């Protein structure tokens, strides 16, 4: 996607298009990103309206219908309690999507703010933030998350808390190093020479140039968070059965992998597709936000 070599002389540049509208237009042109977005939207709708979408009850135990193969009634078969796998995946999407997105956003926000402050201000701020981050990174994160879950109780809010607590430090590290590179750039020096306030420099100059990295980090942290949740659930401090989450479904289903493979594989594929969809969206967003990638 080569940018035009000549400056935009066409009248289009006079048009009062906002940055947001430009970005949306560029995003809409990206087919993969739109496919990813469509998948995520469908999934979210399916999760919200699960009781209407599926005729089955995700918690009803039917011991005479254990581990049935795929059929017209049970599209993806049933699990060891005779519950419909597809229905459980839809209900599990509620938790897994929230666990994938909410803590990632929280740790990304905290990490970005602290990383930019640390990198741009340097000195004592930098020292304090980075030593905190060191502590978080040095501490075994699974243990830390488990401690949080044990002391505060196993519920969704505490999963968010535990994951955000574990996740912000590495984000702060990456953002800080980017900020350090950016602050030496001449356009930052120009802003300082203009008498631009430090807060404005951080927000208007550094932040937009960190966004592409944040998007990549975000699309990487969603699958990570889903995996974290399944680890915690597997260890018994995460989501509690009979509640369903994708990680838990894979963990429980693996015991029956030979009798009824779909019980473990179907939620695994759901994780895979969701992660891919978020990656496509992330790539599309990153390109759409880069002015030099637009026509």
């Amino acid at each position: 996607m080569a940018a035009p070599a000549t400056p935009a002389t066409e009248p289009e540049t006079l048009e009062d298009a906002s940055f947001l509208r430009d970005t949306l237009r560029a995003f809409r042109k990206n087919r993969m990103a739109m496919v990813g977005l469509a998948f995520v939207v469908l999934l979210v709708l399916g999760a919200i309206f699960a009781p209407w979408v599926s005729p089955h009850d995700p918690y009803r135990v039917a011991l005479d219908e254990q581990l049935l193969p795929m059929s017209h009634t049970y599209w993806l078969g049933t699990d060891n309690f005779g519950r419909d796998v597809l229905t459980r995946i839809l209900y599990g999407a509620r938790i897994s999507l929230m666990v994938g997105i909410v803590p990632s956003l929280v740790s990304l926000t905290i990490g970005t703010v602290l990383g930019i402050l640390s990198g741009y201000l340097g000195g004592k701020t930098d020292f304090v933030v980075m030593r905190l981050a060191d502590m978080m990174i040095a501490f075994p994160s699974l243990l830390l998350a488990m401690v949080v879950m044990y002391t505060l109780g196993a519920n969704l809010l505490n999963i968010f808390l535990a994951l955000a607590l574990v996740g912000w430090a590495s984000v702060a590290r990456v953002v800080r190093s980017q900020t350090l590179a950016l602050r030496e750039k001449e356009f930052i020096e120009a802003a300082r020479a203009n008498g631009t306030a430090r807060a404005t420099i951080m927000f208007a100059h550094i932040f937009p140039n960190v966004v592409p990295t944040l998007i990549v980090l975000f699309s990487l942290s969603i699958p990570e968070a889903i995996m974290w949740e399944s680890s915690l659930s597997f260890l018994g401090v995460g989501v509690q059965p009979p509640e369903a989450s994708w990680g838990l479904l894979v963990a429980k289903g693996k015991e029956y992998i030979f009798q009824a493979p779909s019980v473990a594989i179907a939620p695994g594929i759901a994780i895979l597709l969701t992660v891919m969809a978020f990656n496509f969206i992330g790539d599309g967003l990153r390109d759409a936000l880069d002015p030099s990638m637009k026509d």
Partner: protein
Amino acid sequence: MTHTAKAPPAPAQDEILISTRDLTKHYRIGGGLFGGPARVVRAVDGVTLDIRARETFALVGESGCGKTTLGRVMLRLQEPTSGTIRYRDTDLTDLGEGALRALRKNLQIVFQDPFASLNPRMRIEQILAEPLRSHGYGTPAEIRERCTELLEMVGLRRQYLRSYPHQFSGGQRQRIGIARALANKPDFVVCDESVSALDVSIQAQVLNLLGDLQDQLQLTYFFITHDLSVVRQFADRVGVMFLGRLVEVGTTEELFAHPQHPYTMLLMSAVPRPDPRRRGEPRPMMQGEIPSPMNLPKGCRFHTRCPFARDICRAEEPMLQTGGGPAVACHFPLEG
């Protein structure tokens, strides 16, 4: 605030706009927790300089001699290690952050690399509006109008306001950088190798633009360059810098006609002469490498490369003799 309102119509030619006294900037290298003893790089090492209002003062020297650092320190984009900087009646050296920010509208800089000096994620309008907003220029409509005015002042069309930096050529970007520097009507502009990255033909255009703007806006330029032909065409006075010190200061004519410091003479002789009849004529050459600014030679810092060095040059450092007229830091200045 306009210049005509502030300055008398026919100002005294030697009104000092900005001056430095014994300005130094040292960088410490290494010497962390386990790094062993720190070493000190003397990037700027005692520069005393007066720049007069509305003149173009060119600073020349080889790369690594501290030209750029001097420009940055004069604007306090980097903090000086010692010495003082004065702007009109204000001592910039210890000025607090707030007061300094307010003064920055008068003290500006145009950078070397037109590709690094504009934020790639901002439209031209945002880039030009930022200095205006920082100093409370006016309503959004007034800011917008001023941006258009600035763009047209540097010879670009108003349509470009909504474009991004990557859509422009190097010369156009440099014009945008100039427009940004002039947004708040400064009186002192540091041009840090501002035309070095451009093609020769574009260079001439940008130099002409800078010259026109100087006449219109009564600007004072501190013009950092290594290109002597640009200096000859553009500067009123020239300072020659070697290893963090000024070795010679004089008017452009004086310096080009009668260089007094051997270093100046050798620099001048290194300029290619577009004269086929003088091809092959022998020229004096500089010997050896520049000494390291971390480990300066004793005595005159040029003596290791000077064809005329004598004993005293190896023992005693000559000081720049200031006080009107050309000044030179040499024990044995060349005869005119």
